[in-house]
């Protein structure tokens, strides 16, 4: 079990390293000249050359990569080319804001979706099940910005002016700012989990061990909570992980939509300004989040499966 976990961890680190290479090469291959982008069209050749020298833009790619990687490993991914702040200082509070948003969405959507999926499976082929199926399918089919805009129309600009349509503060987020972006993410992430949970639960409820539990005369509640749900958690954890990992990238659109001061919004800004150190750091951060969430899902599946748990100690 521990060995398996360590193995997954090593693989995660390897993948992250591979991603760092790809991110670096991709940003290096972007057309245009960074120095030109920073200094603007009127820059003299001398100033451009001086800036290139300062930013090591003329060094060979390999040495540029290793100095960047070294910086990353010492938590110093360089300075923003736009505002001159260290990337860590610039990105730090935005990471916190985004994490708050993602965690809120995850904590709300996962249990809610698993409950809905279970409920739908128990009510299989009845009205409640059909309604859940249609609603989740529609939500899954809608892009999240459509969902977000609809929410804005309903709760912010329409008759119910309960919540702010976009964020207008200066970096500090309050609960009110969080509601609409989080709700959008919940509606984007939840439907898949609901559908997967329903499908898995139906399979489990048809299984012979659930039949046997009923034939033992156990109350339906015990059958469901003790015999059925634990056997559905393992497979569903993988889907939950995929969805939560999607959050890491999905925040970009939603944050942009609500002007929410998180890494997604910062990333869009940085790309517009060709602020390469920020783009690189954020891309890598999102990849790291993706890997960590998947790793956690693997661990949950391992723990949920007694066969694995008892075999590999």
């Amino acid at each position, binding site marked *: 079990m521990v060995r398996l976990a360590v193995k997954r961890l090593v693989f995660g680190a390897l993948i992250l390293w591979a991603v760092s290479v790809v991110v670096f090469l991709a940003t290096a291959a972007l057309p245009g000249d960074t120095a030109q982008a920073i200094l603007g069209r009127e820059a003299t050749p001398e100033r451009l050359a001086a800036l290139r020298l300062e930013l090591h833009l003329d060094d060979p790619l390999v040495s540029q990569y290793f100095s960047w990687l070294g910086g990353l490993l010492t938590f110093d991914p360089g300075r923003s080319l736009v505002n001159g702040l260290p990337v860590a200082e610039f990105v730090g509070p935005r990471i916190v804001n985004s994490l708050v948003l993602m965690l809120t969405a995850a904590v709300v959507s996962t249990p809610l979706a698993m409950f809905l999926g279970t409920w739908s499976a128990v009510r299989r082929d009845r009205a409640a099940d059909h309604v859940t199926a249609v609603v989740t399918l529609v939500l899954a089919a809608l892009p999240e910005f459509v969902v977000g805009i609809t929410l804005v129309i309903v709760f912010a600009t329409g008759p119910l002016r309960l919540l702010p349509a976009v964020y207008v503060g200066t970096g500090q987020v309050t609960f009110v700012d969080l509601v609409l972006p989080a709700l959008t993410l919940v509606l984007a992430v939840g439907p898949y989990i609901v559908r997967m949970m329903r499908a898995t639960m139906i399979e489990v409820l048809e299984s*012979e*061990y659930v039949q*046997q*539990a*009923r034939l033992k*005369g156990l109350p339906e509640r015990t059958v469901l909570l003790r015999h059925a749900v634990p*056997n559905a958690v393992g497979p569903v954890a993988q889907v939950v992980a995929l969805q939560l990992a999607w959050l890491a990238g999905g925040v970009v659109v939603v944050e942009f939509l609500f002007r929410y001061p998180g890494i997604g919004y910062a990333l869009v800004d940085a790309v517009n300004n060709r602020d390469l150190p920020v783009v690189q750091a954020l891309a890598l951060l999102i990849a790291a989040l993706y890997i960590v969430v998947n790793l956690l899902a693997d661990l949950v599946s391992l723990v949920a499966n*007694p066969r694995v748990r008892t075999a590999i100690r």
Partner: protein
Amino acid sequence: MTTPERTEVLTGVRVRGLTVAGVPSGAPIVDSVDLDVRPGEILGLVGESGSGKTTLGLALLAYYKRGTQLAGGSVAINGVDLAGAAVRRMRGDAVAYIPQSPASALNPALRIRTQLGECGGDDARVREVLREVALPDTDVFLRRYPHQLSGGQQQRVAIAMAFLGRPDLIVLDEPTTGLDVTTQKHVLETVRKMCATYSCAAVYITHDMAVVAELTDRIAVMYSGRVVETGPARTVLRSPQHPYTARLLMAVPDLDGRREIRGIPGHAPSPVRRPAGCAFAPRCPLVVDRCRDEVPALEDGVRCFRAGVSRFEVVERVEVPVVSADAALEVRGLSAWYGSHQVLEDISLSVPRGQCVALLGESGSGKTTLARAIAGLHPRHGGEVVLGGESLPPSGLRRTPLQRRRIQYVFQNPYESLNPRKTVRELVLAPARVLLGKVPDGLVEDALSQAALSPELASRYPDQLSGGERQRVAIARALAAQPEVLVCDEVTSALDVSVQAAIVELIAGLRERKGLTLLFVTHDIALVRTVAQHVAVLEHGRIVERGPVAEVLAAPEHPYTQALMADTPRFDTSRFSQ
């Protein structure tokens, strides 16, 4: 069957007019069944697949699977009707269920302690019952998960679970299917002992007449949802009144080899396509016009207009002396591995031309691996496979089409070995196209008729066929390649007894008529006698005993063979006729 003595007794189980129907078809899967089981009595509920026996068994616990529902009748246990809100409390306390496959009926995510503990009774009681079913009652054992137990232990846990609540009725649904004969024997002994200890009424569902003869006090034979014959076990086995019962008994392989086995032609109808009148009429040798129009009532324990006309006939088996012949197939010093695990060790075997060698062994003995190695399906092996004096490459991919043509393989499960998207014609032609080069005219019709199938089936798809028909198609597919050696890997173990008998007859006939050389892989020692001239007994990847069938079975020398002989339920009809 309702003798006055019986109707007055309120103890035990009383089933009246029980009908379970399919949803939404409304077709009765179980059709007006009456049963009585007294405390301490074991009733054998016998039937082929699709006869509704499992549906009936579950209905005794007022449980109806998805797609079925109660359509009438009643079940009463000790005078208490099993209906309405009381059902859930009755389950476990008054009536318990032992499933067919404990591997899938025990929850994989819960410890044994949890699963036993929720059946009622405190810790001391749990340990007491564990001791009664001959399992350890230690904490270490209780902490285990189902996957950490052997098949036999899992079934004992299921039995312990059922008896924890001291039920008045216990329903056992083929609890020994899939177990080795030795394990089966122990499980049956445990069941008998537990029923006696708790003076519990038991309904034992099975298709295996030999087990019924060993274990049960009374028998109810089911056919297409109806009980067609019922009575004391001895009487029914000695002089079956219904033609179906008689034919079912004649299909059981005889370990002592005094009688031939005979299959029942055709197959049981599904509840939706059940014919008017007697459901057995289309397969019945004694059928008269009345049988086709009118459903016979259950009178004196038989549901038949021609009750008693058909008797169990012993078709004397003539022991044919084994003549010597040159070897068609030889295996020399064969060893095989799965990864680093060795499954076969230094196997040498000779299959005489035109004769049948049975490879006998329990699950895990390596018998299927040996068959696959011979057919070139398990290339990770050392040693030599020699066909007609020519040594074959280990992998089928390296064998020439001619070499591959000469050995054909019939797989265990006809539900998996036929591609569901191809018609019978395409299935039969597929190997012949590759192996024969030019396909002769009428090959498919010829192969089908050799497998005793109507040529009209050629345009059907596998899911339109019964299990027996599917296995015949698989045999026809092998025959179409015109092989010299036919490897049959447990070809009857997925089939009902009556179908098994017909398939065995077919295979034996092919050997006699066409001079086909057979390698017959099986776990059933009783079948060996019927089909083979030579036997090789496999244990843990080694051949522990070999020789002509008559000699080996008459005087087995190796303790393993002796144990197999002793533990196999004997179905000896002469025992009932005294």
